Each structure stands twice: as C-alpha cells, then as structure tokens.
C-alpha cells in the first residue's frame, strides 16, 4: 500500500525524515533507511534543508525507493525557477516517486552559501497549485502533456508562529489549491497545538486534507534550548525544558517524552498521523515507534 492509500483508508500513518549527506555517499542513505524500513509508512527527503548543499532530494528519494522505503520528496522554491521545478517533478515522476512535499524553502542566508541568489519564483501555495495542475495533465504554460504525473501532494504548516490567524488562511489556501496532506512543525506545546486543531476542525480542513503532527525526539536539553533560541516559529513549553534538564538519562527521557507526545497527539480529534523528525538521531526511530505502539504490521 502506498502512503496515499493508507491515508485514504483511514489508518493512523507515521512518516519519518532523512536528511541527505553533504557528499555523494549514497550508502549513508541506505544505512539510515534501515531504521525506517518496516517502522514508518513513508520518509521525507529534505531538499537542501537550512540552505546547505546536500545530495539532491530526487536522487536520494530514488535510492530510498530502491531500498524499499517509500519516499516523500521535498521540493523547495529557493533553488529553482518554474522551469526547473516542473522538469525536476517530471523527472521524479519518471523515477517512480509519488509523494511530493511542497515548501517555499529556508532563506539562503541561513545556509553555507549566504551570498547566493534566492530564486523564489513561486511560493509554496503556487507550487502546490502548479503540481496539482501537472497531475491534471497541464504544465504552467498551458501545454498539455501526453502523460500526466501522478503525485500525492503534501504541504507544511506552522501552528506556532505569528500571525496565527493568517496561518489558518494560508492553510486554507493550500488545501484549496490541492494539498492532500499537511505536515506540521514539531510540536513542543501541546495546548497550543490542540487549540490550533480545534480551529482546523471547525473550518472543516481535517476532512479535506490529512493533518500529520510533527514530533521531534531530542537527545539533550541543549538541542531544545538551541531550537528555542535559533529556530524562528518554534514554541517550546518550559515544562519540556525543565524535564530534560532534570533528567538523569536525557536520551531515555527524550524517548519517553516523544512517546507521551505521540499518545497525546493521537487523542486530538482530526490528527491523522505523525511526522517523526529524528534530526541526527535516525537510529532511535524503531524504539519510539515500538514504544508508541505504532509498529507497522506489514510493509
């Protein structure tokens, strides 16, 4: 079953995330994919995240596909204009990649080439609309294709950043133009997220799209404090920071925290799955998935 079929069948899905290496070593991806195979339904492949040059997301997605893991290819607007985006998407479709996550992309200032020209020809909403249009058989130019790619279109949402109301409008737009699933920023403030979900349910968006809540297991309090300080738009409840600070074994505590979070998120109406982001800690995935009782029965 593909991710699309699983979501449509109403199953509670789990997505993972792999960041490709800063080299041409494909074995890194094959090695990391082992932690996800059989544990999650699909794995995000980041596209030069935080604007640092990495192995391309298309090639990485293909490697994962060969390793038997369903990839969700991320596609950002920072590095490509509308020609490159469409040609890359066609290439991805030809390679058998079915899931695309449409993002605007981090600004180049944060990466290893801050002097680069950011493209931002489209924004994420226009990208979703463009991909949706391609699945209907047309390029942006209006040219009809002989064979239309079949994409399952995803988008991101940030429930925790200002201006909150405007973000709901944006999410509505994303769903309107064709986003079929939504992955959120990592949740570190359950109350805020629950309130956001209430609004989503009230707007009826949870029926038109599948909301997958972001969960990020952390190894130490240092990671949390770094995120709080450096990553804009991430809200971290003081409770979690206190808890990690006082933990005797931070790694076990981090796993326990993630598992508790997953259990609470499952109970929130409208949440259709989890997006697990074990950044630099991929090896913990099987432990968390098993402890949360989300182990996949079959591939």
């Amino acid at each position, binding site marked *: 079953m593909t991710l699309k079929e699983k979501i449509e069948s109403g199953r509670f899905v789990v997505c993972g995330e792999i960041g490709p290496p800063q080299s041409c070593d494909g074995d890194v991806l094959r090695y990391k994919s082992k932690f996800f195979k059989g544990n999650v339904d699909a794995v995000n492949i980041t596209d030069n995240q935080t604007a640092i040059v990495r192995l391309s997301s298309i090639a990485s997605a293909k490697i994962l596909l060969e390793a038997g893991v369903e990839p969700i290819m991320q596609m950002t607007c920072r590095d490509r204009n509308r020609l490159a985006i469409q040609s890359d998407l066609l290439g991805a479709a030809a390679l058998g990649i079915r899931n695309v996550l449409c993002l*605007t992309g981090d*600004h180049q200032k944060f990466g290893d080439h801050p002097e680069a020209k950011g493209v*931002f020809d489209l*924004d994420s909403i226009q990208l979703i609309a463009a991909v949706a249009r391609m699945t209907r058989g047309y390029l*942006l*130019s209006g040219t009809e294709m002989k064979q239309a790619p079949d994409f399952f279109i995803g988008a991101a949402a940030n429930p925790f950043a*200002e*201006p909150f109301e405007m973000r*709901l409008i944006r999410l509505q737009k994303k769903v309107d133009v*064709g986003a079929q699933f939504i992955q959120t920023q990592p949740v570190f403030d359950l109350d805020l997220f629950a309130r956001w979900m209430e609004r989503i349910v009230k707007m009826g968006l949870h029926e038109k799209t599948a909301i997958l809540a972001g969960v990020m297991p952390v190894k130490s309090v240092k990671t949390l404090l770094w995120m709080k300080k450096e990553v804009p738009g991430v809200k971290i409840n003081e409770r979690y920071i206190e808890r990690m600070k006082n933990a005797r074994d931070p790694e076990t505590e981090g796993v326990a925290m993630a598992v508790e979070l997953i259990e609470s998120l499952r109970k929130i109406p409208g949440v259709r799955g989890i997006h697990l982001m074990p950044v630099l800690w991929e090896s913990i995935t099987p432990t968390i998935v098993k402890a949360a009782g989300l182990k996949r029965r079959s591939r």
Partner: protein
Amino acid sequence: MFENLVTYHRSVSPAERRVSRFILFFEDVVKIPLFGCQRCGECILSSTAFICCQQCPKRMRNGPCGGTGDDGSCEVYPDRKCVWYRIYYRSKLLNRVSLLTSVKKIHNWNLEGTSTWLNVFRKRIDPPVWFVREEEREQGGEQG
C-alpha cells in the same frame, strides 16, 4: 480549480514602453515612499492592506513563510518586522482580511519594472479592489 495561475504577457510595442516609463515616474513618486513599492508591475497592494508584500526577502505573495518571530520580526532581517505580520494586522484594522484569502497568481517577470497603472488599463493584470462589501467582511472575519 485555479487553472488561471499565470498572467500572460501580450507583446508590448516600443511606443507603449515609452508611455509605461513615463507613467512609472509618477507611480514611483507616489508608491515608493507611501507603500514601499518594489515595482513588480503586478500590483496587489489593494489586497495587502496597502503594504507592498514584495518587500519580503522571499517575495512571498500569498502570506508569511514559517519564520516570523514571536515579536513579528523577519527571520532574515531580525531588525525588520515581517511584512506579512504588518499586512495581517493592518488588514484586520481596515476590515480587509477577506482579501487575504484569495490565491495570488504567479508573478509574471515580464512585467517587472513596468507601470501597474498602465497594465491594469491594458487589462494585463487584475484591477485593484477598493471596497470590501459588508457580507464579505464577515466571511473574512470568520475564516481569519
């Protein structure tokens, strides 16, 4: 739905280019100091509460990226306010939130640095929305 993503560019005669440059002079005098106009030639000021959204480092036309700080600061230039943060709160003040809900077209780079006023007159781009009807205000308020 939403097939009309792109504005198409009809060829512009050299004579019209000259007219465009002439009008643009007056447009710049008004729009740059008042609204922070970036001369995209495809103005959507009327639906962004009269703040030019093209001041955004990512040139977002459909709303803020995920990086707005708690105090509304831009993640790229922390000394500045996120332009979409300003747009949202001013739209609320002016009862124009419903105008933010429409999906804005992909920018036509052919129109960069041309006169919006002429482009509207020549029907290359959508005309501005001056007034929001009472019932639409409520709809926008409910969604936002």
